[in-house]
């Protein structure tokens, strides 16, 4: 497996351009399967491993898909030949479950092998199943497959989600978009990628209102058509570079962002004494002194995102004073802490809470990326640490960060990828 080797201690300077939102793109690609005519031209698709897996899955389904280097993807699903998705690619990523909603919405039946993804805690799909069943589908789980079938078609329904779930909200939208009648999702997730998927579906001719609020109304339509669309910028990638700029006491202009989506991260960094200048679609982040400790608690949007908690924990590990981090979304999201401790961090984890006593500096070490965002947290630690840090299991980072070493090198970081020929 590839490794990233980082020589720490260099301040980051310059500009970085953020790619398309992973969490939106992994739902928008399956959503394109729903069209009955035309093609979908989608821009700003990030160049990451999860997208490559998804594209391979869609090609296996029979979809005609052309992916270009500049983030443009053209999709024509008219040649699709099956409602069954399986194989290594399906098992390797979480978002393959969006194929369930999309195929169910298209064919009234879907069979998808159980999804994989980061091991950050129990990630049930009961709310997805509850939604599909409310729409009239019979759902069974057998032999590692999730099967959903509605021989008499899907019918609109009122669905109250017991917990706020981005995945369930999007999956129900995908299934309901062509159902007969009106579907109302209550206690829906409000994340920007939910809105982006709803926008994309509406561009295809769907009738979805209320995305971005906790009540989403979907009036079923008979047909959907191809469209041109551009995915929103990735708030988590942007947040990661904000943290990287702060921890290296650098000065970075982060371009192609929607500042509104970053408000919770911006607020915390300002509280820590980091300087942030907000422009229309960019942010300048610079820091001259050691940041101050703060407390954070992860919450659904617009609260502090769980995906940024891990990179932020790294920043807090070298901040002045004691910070308390409460992870209220995923219970397994402190796996990177043991690795940070190898680098000299002083962190104590008790259940869903991490108590961090900031140290003056971290020291380079060989550490293992345990999951996607935890991996990014270790890269950030390496940028700030004294000496050389080697981050192993980079495959996790590659799932969600576009050209990470290239972007960081352009900002002045000393980072190289060591390719493991055994796995090529």
């Amino acid at each position: 497996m590839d490794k990233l080797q980082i020589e720490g201690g260099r301040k980051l300077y310059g500009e970085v351009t953020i790619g398309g939102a992973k969490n939106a793109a992994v739902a928008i690609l399956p959503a394109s399967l729903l069209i009955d005519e035309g093609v979908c031209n989608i821009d700003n698709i990030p160049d990451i491993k999860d997208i490559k897996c998804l594209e391979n899955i869609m090609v296996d389904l029979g979809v005609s898909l052309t992916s270009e280097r500049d983030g443009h993807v053209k999709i024509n699903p008219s040649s699709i030949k099956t409602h069954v998705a399986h194989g290594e690619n399906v098992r390797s990523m979480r978002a393959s479950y969006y194929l369930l909603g999309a195929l169910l919405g298209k064919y009234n039946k879907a069979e998808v092998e159980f999804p994989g993804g980061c091991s950050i805690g129990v990630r049930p799909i009961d709310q997805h199943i509850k939604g599909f069943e409310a729409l009239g589908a019979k759902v069974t789980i057998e032999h590692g497959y999730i099967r959903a079938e509605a021989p008499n078609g899907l019918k609109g329904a009122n669905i109250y989600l017991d917990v706020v779930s981005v995945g369930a909200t999007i999956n129900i939208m995908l299934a309901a978009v062509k159902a007969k009648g009106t579907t109302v999702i209550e206690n829906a997730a409000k994340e920007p990628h939910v809105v982006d998927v709803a926008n994309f579906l509406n561009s295809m001719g769907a009738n979805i209102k209320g995305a971005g609020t906790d009540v989403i109304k979907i009036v079923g339509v008979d047909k959907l058509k191809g469209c041109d669309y551009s995915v929103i910028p990735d708030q988590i990638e942007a947040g990661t570079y904000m943290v990287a700029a702060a921890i290296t006491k650098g000065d970075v202009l982060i371009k192609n962002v929607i500042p509104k989506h970053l408000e919770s991260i911006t607020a915390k960094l300002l509280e820590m004494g980091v300087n942030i200048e907000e422009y229309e679609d960019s942010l300048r982040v610079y820091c001259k002194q050691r940041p101050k400790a703060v407390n954070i608690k992860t919450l659904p949007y617009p609260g502090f995102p769980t995906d940024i908690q891990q990179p932020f924990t790294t920043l807090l590990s070298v901040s002045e004073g004691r910070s308390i981090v409460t992870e209220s979304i995923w219970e397994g999201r402190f796996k990177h802490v043991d690795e940070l401790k190898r680098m000299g961090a002083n962190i104590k984890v008790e259940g869903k809470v991490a108590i961090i006593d900031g140290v003056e500096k971290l020291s380079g070490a060989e550490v293992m990326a345990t999951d996607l965002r935890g991996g990014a947290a270790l890269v950030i630690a390496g940028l700030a640490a004294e000496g050389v840090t080697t981050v192993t299991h980079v495959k996790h980072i590659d799932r969600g960060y576009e050209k990470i070493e290239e972007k960081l090198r352009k900002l002045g970081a000393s980072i190289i990828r060591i390719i493991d020929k055994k796995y090529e």
Partner: protein
Amino acid sequence: MTEGTMQFKFNFEGNKKVQEILTEVYNALKEKGYNPINQLVGYILSGDPTYITSYKNARSLIRKIERDELLEELLRSYLER
């Protein structure tokens, strides 16, 4: 004005800024193939700029007006016509 271009008419000078911005945003959304009313309603309800295209700088433009001011002007314009 091209065919299909929307002009919002407000009753007094004070809300000219809102009128201009709303018209520009509406036209940008329409040119990109969206249903502009749906998108603007979505934005007003949720506050999420994702609803507004970045085309022709519309996303930045809409953020120049606070949502409550926008809604106030729309209501005033409707009720006083």
